[in-house]
């Protein structure tokens, strides 16, 4: 039974990672590597939390998180797409900027609790029928609506990328923007739209942390999850379906230290806390050793200029 509860909690803990990873998948499919996921998550976290505190409305809180992420994405897109700035450094700057903004605005809400009505919206809502499936029902279908939203976005993203026409156009851009351009695809418009959408989705991961996971404002609430999400994109080979598995696996790793300490596991909690990071490294190394084929978009990280030859 306790294993079931652990797995259920792993999904809870993996949800912020799932959103962040899905958003980054979308961005990277357009050929842009955004290392600012941590910053986007922080923007989403503070955007959602502050709007929730001020308006007491869940819908506004979610919209504000999306908007905050999209604005962060807009800065990134303007610099890397229009001004063709270095994507790595722009992403790092976005993280610094997001940390600053979240810290600045967060000062006003330090240690304060979310209104009860918002907390109530995100209470557990077992899904009819599905939640009664033995084992799977308990693990997957007795959660809050935010978690179900994660499932939906992952699946929708998969269908979009692999079955739809705009998805094909997007993948073409990520592989070879010059080919896409010659095919009549508006490369920059696609990049903008998908970076904005991707950033907004990543920001939802931050909002999950501040609205659901720890509904009290605390400084640096993301604690490096944005970076793990960047690694998870590689781990999941840019595939939204695999991202689901990856995110929940890492969610489990995130909480295992605390759980093991509860059962007096003979290893310091602080050492166990290293596990997610160590596993990320192990995954990175293994995926580089055993990469049969490089799944990353071929034009990832390269700016596009039509008159380049």
């Amino acid at each position, binding site marked *: 039974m306790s294993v079931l509860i652990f797995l259920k909690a792993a999904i809870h803990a993996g949800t912020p990672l799932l959103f962040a990873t899905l958003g980054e998948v979308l961005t990277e499919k357009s050929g842009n590597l955004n290392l600012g996921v941590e910053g986007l998550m922080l923007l989403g976290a503070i955007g959602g939390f502050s709007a929730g505190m001020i308006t007491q409305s869940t819908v506004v809180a979610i919209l504000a998180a999306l908007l905050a992420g999209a604005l962060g994405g807009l800065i990134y897109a303007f610099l890397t797409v229009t001004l063709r700035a*270095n994507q790595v*450094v*722009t992403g790092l700057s976005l993280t610094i900027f997001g940390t600053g*903004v979240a810290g600045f605005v967060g000062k006003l809400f330090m240690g304060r609790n979310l209104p009860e009505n918002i907390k109530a919206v995100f209470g557990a809502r077992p899904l009819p029928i599905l939640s009664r499936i033995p084992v799977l029902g308990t693990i997957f279908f007795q959660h809050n609506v935010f978690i179900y939203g994660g499932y939906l976005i992952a699946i929708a993203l998969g269908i979009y990328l692999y079955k739809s026409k705009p998805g094909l156009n997007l993948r073409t851009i990520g592989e070879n923007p010059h080919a896409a351009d010659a095919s009549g695809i508006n490369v920059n418009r696609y990049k903008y739209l998908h970076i904005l959408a991707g950033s907004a989705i990543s920001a939802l991961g931050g909002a999950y942390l501040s609205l659901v996971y720890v509904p009290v404002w605390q400084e640096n609430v993301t604690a490096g999850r944005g970076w793990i999400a960047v690694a998870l994109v590689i781990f999941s080979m840019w595939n939204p379906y695999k991202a689901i598995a990856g995110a929940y696996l890492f969610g489990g790793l995130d909480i295992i230290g605390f759980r093991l300490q509860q059962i007096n596991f003979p290893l310091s909690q*602080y050492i166990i806390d290293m596990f997610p990071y160590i596993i*990320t490294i192990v995954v990175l190394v293994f995926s*580089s*050793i055993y990469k049969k084929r490089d799944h990353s978009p071929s034009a990832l990280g390269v700016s596009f200029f039509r008159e380049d030859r």
Partner: protein
Amino acid sequence: MIRISKRLELPPYLQWLIRASSIIFALIIMSVFLLALGHNPIKVYSAMVTGSFGTFFRFRKTIELMIPLSITALGILVAFKMKFWNIGAEGQILMGAFAATFFALKFAYLPRPLLLILMAIGGSLIGGLWALIPAFFKVKYATNETLFTLMLNYIAIKWIIYLQYGPWKDPQQAGFPKIPDFSVNATLPTLGGIHVGWLILIALVIIAHIVMNKTKFGFEIAVIGESKNTAKYAGMSVNKVILSTLFISGALGGLVGMMQTSGVHGTLSTSITGGIGYTAIIVTWLAHVKVHLIPVIGLLFAVLIQGAFFIQTAFQIPHSVADILQGMILFSALGSEFFINYRLHLVKNRRAKRVVK
């Protein structure tokens, strides 16, 4: 309609003029933000300067920030020159500090010069080895170094916290989790009121400048950064150079860790870095990966951080404003490169214009 085309190379002075204006542009944008908060931006900016240089104490604080920022940036520079994106300086500093603290606590009986030298060597060695781990995997399996070095930062932080709460907890602190303070023997001496790190910084800048610009090793680093294929083609031992460079990169971080524990904080905790490992990345980037500009940009950022501390008390502006300002300067500097590399033309709208339905 505006058209964009690539430029031929701009003369260097114009390039730097554009870059300098980008920083001013960021300060202007920030002024609007400060105005909105009800502050006079000129007062705030001038307070940041006086907060950094107004008294000897403040000046010392500023230099104490500039030293680790610049040395760390030098370490990052050698890696970045090779396009090895080492963003693990934070962890390299902490691991260096860990090694230095090991000697400071376990060999406190040694004479001061010997102990300090041991601490410096130990710090550099462990910092260097810490950076060698991702370098090894990069060389062997082309593993992504950006994420690898970043994950190592978090591991280093957890390691220090583990020491602080576990084996190295000071028994005299009545349960308060803190690593013991260093003895006098383990403390860096001062020269002119500031720890001797400033002398080390000057020496390192000169050495780094010569190595990067005049030696075969520096040439090899630069060529590898441009193209590994070309480097191999020219007969360079690419892997050996990458590994040695990363060892040096990490060792400089480790040395900073030693200096921060021994010269500034007198003990080990995760706060000895104060985010220097990340800020130094920005310093390196803004210095355009050029050694002689590192101390200049390093000082600028020291002022920015020290000034932000000052305005926090003087104007009740949260310290996170420093992060926002850093972000703004970076965005602006990043964007300015566009105007260095491209030209904009205004094309007059010609009369007849029929674009297909």
